[in-house]
């Protein structure tokens, strides 16, 4: 029983991490109008930077997280500049462009950081385990869980309570009206893409201590993010968070409870969700 509790906690922590990763993708699509297939590459870049920069001290850890976020934001900026010229030419052209960025970026990352799986060196305090409800749980995962909750809360507040967030949501709903109140919707698009990149970089940095980062990271991250974004309704942030936690729990609780079906569980769950969920989710781009 204890195992189930601790595994569920683990699933939620994992899910929240995925939510940060997927939130960037869904926001970029919903508000920025860009289906970013290079999203996984941004996540991997954040992870590599975190792994390379950390040196076992708190200072280096903080710098690493900041650098990873900035690198992601810069990637988002590049993406915004690159896709600006493709506006109005549909998602296929964008997909091709971002796919190209993903391929080139992936090979650059492998060339720079090598093909081995890297892990950050964490401060000793984060390397141990603590007893939670009489069960051992890694401290680094608890820390990641805390940061993930914090980011989710801040993200929600920014999106729903600040002027910037209102502008983003308004751009999703009615671009002409945003232009009418004197704000260039393209500036909003670009800002959203930068923010989305920053979220990807941050997600990369946060995931690395647990999963490591290697040549397969970009693909796995993109695949999981796409599953989450599609299940949660394209463009919907609350939908993405719910779907991410669902994926996290399926990937942890599900695979140990029904080990025989482990390889198929996630895809089956996705199919069921898509079949059952006929109505669009709030915020979904239709």
């Amino acid at each position, binding site marked *: 029983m204890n*195992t189930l509790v*601790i*595994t569920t906690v*683990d*699933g939620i922590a*994992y899910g929240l991490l995925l939510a940060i990763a997927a939130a960037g993708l869904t926001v970029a699509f919903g508000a920025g109008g860009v289906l970013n*297939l290079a999203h*996984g590459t941004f996540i991997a870049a954040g992870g590599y930077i975190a792994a390379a920069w950390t040196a076992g001290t708190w200072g280096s850890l903080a710098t690493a997280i900041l650098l990873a976020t900035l690198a992601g934001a810069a990637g988002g900026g590049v993406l915004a500049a690159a896709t600006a010229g493709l506006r109005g030419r549909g998602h296929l052209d964008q997909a091709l462009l971002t*796919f190209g960025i*993903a*391929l080139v970026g*992936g*090979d650059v990352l492998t060339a720079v950081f090598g*093909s*081995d*799986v*890297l*892990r950050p060196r964490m401060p000793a305090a984060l390397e141990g*385990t603590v007893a939670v409800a009489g*069960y*051992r*749980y*890694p401290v*680094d*995962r608890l820390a990641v869980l805390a940061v993930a909750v914090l980011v989710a809360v801040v993200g929600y507040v920014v999106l729903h309570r600040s002027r910037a967030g209102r502008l983003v949501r308004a751009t999703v709903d009615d671009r002409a009206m945003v232009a009418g109140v004197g704000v260039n919707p393209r500036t909003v698009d670009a800002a959203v893409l930068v923010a989305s990149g920053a979220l990807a970089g941050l997600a990369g940095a946060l995931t690395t201590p*647990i*999963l*490591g980062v*290697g*040549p*397969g990271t*970009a*693909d*796995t991250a*993109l695949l999981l993010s796409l599953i989450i974004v599609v299940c949660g309704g394209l463009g919907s942030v609350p939908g993405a968070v719910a779907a991410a936690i669902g994926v996290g729990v399926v*990937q*942890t*609780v599900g*695979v*140990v409870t029904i*080990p025989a079906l*482990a*390889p198929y569980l996630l895809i089956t769950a996705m199919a069921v969700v898509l079949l059952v969920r006929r109505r669009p989710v709030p915020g979904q781009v239709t």
Partner: protein
Amino acid sequence: MRRARLRLRPALAAVTATSLLAAGVACTGGSGDSDRVRIGLLVSLSGIYTSVGEDMQRGFQLYLDTHDGRLGGRKIDLIVADEGDGPATAVPAAQKLLGRDRVVALTGLVGGATVDKVQTLTHERRIPLVGANARPEFAPVAGAPRDLSYTWHTSYNSDEPGIAIAAHIKAEVGGGSVYAIGPDYQGGWDELRGFTDTFTELGGKLANPGGKTVFTPFPTTENFLPYLNKAAETKPAAVYTFYAGGPAVAFVKQYRQSALKDVPLYAAGFLTEGAVLDAQGTAATGIRNVLNYSPTLPHAANQQFVAAWSAAGHPGQPTTFAMASYDAAAVLDRALAAVDGPVTGETLNAAIATVGRIDSPRGDWQFHPSEHRPVQRWYLREVRADGPVLSNVLLQDLTTLPAT
């Protein structure tokens, strides 16, 4: 996305190889090139097992470089191709090496599934396959067992590490039970079956519910904690596992964070072999594992090998992957020396059968006369600090396999 990227790589490799080939032909001026021999090296230069593939390439190249670029007195044109993650990329690359490049021997090959598929190609063309890594249990073709007359390995069978260590673990745990867990693919099944079959034959008890080994989805599993905590509920006296590459790092790190933390971990040596050991760091300390090689073996051949490895500027200590590929070059060296006249697949294959004892960094070994794989010693190793670096330090000899 990975697939698409991997498709590009063989294309690039093909272009590179073709230009190399053109250069090679130009050098010999098209005249009788009976003293030049083309050998194909097929290893993973992209994908999950890149570091294994690179190690194998380094091992083979190290032998060439320390032997003046010659094997058996003949100048070698080594043509390298990318195996990728498995047969989907490896088979076209092998077809290119065999067809367009007309190599007289094919070596390398990281994955068991690749070997299984490529073996039929090399056999058809009567080209010796000198595999230097995984050797699967070859599936019968059309109901008939495979003809392995052109198939050689300088490595091991995938089930041998488990067979070699089972008796030792049984002696250590006594009446206690052992939990078995591994990745869900051919290599994982073979490695774990070797252990579980031998261990239960010796009267050992598996802690797994129903005595069934737990297999984790491969390569998608990155979070092993749920599996490990579940395993801890069975209160095993020890755990036996096999992982390699990235999953090996995740497994070892998370093992030390799980409820199994203080339970002794035994493994096929690949869990802590090579680049993964650096990434695992101190979390790997104390893992006891079984392999046919340790860089701390005292043989003279091994000391020379380790010194040459460092002198070449390669990182860390040589691995079993590099060693087996180095030995593949040694086998081809002796075989080519024995070929009188033109080198063809047939003459080379006949010569390989006569190479006899190989003085290898792992200790002397020779080919099993019918199975064409090494009869060799297996060693128990433990991950310990060896000076400033972690190393798989030799503890004791275990056994010689295959038993004759």
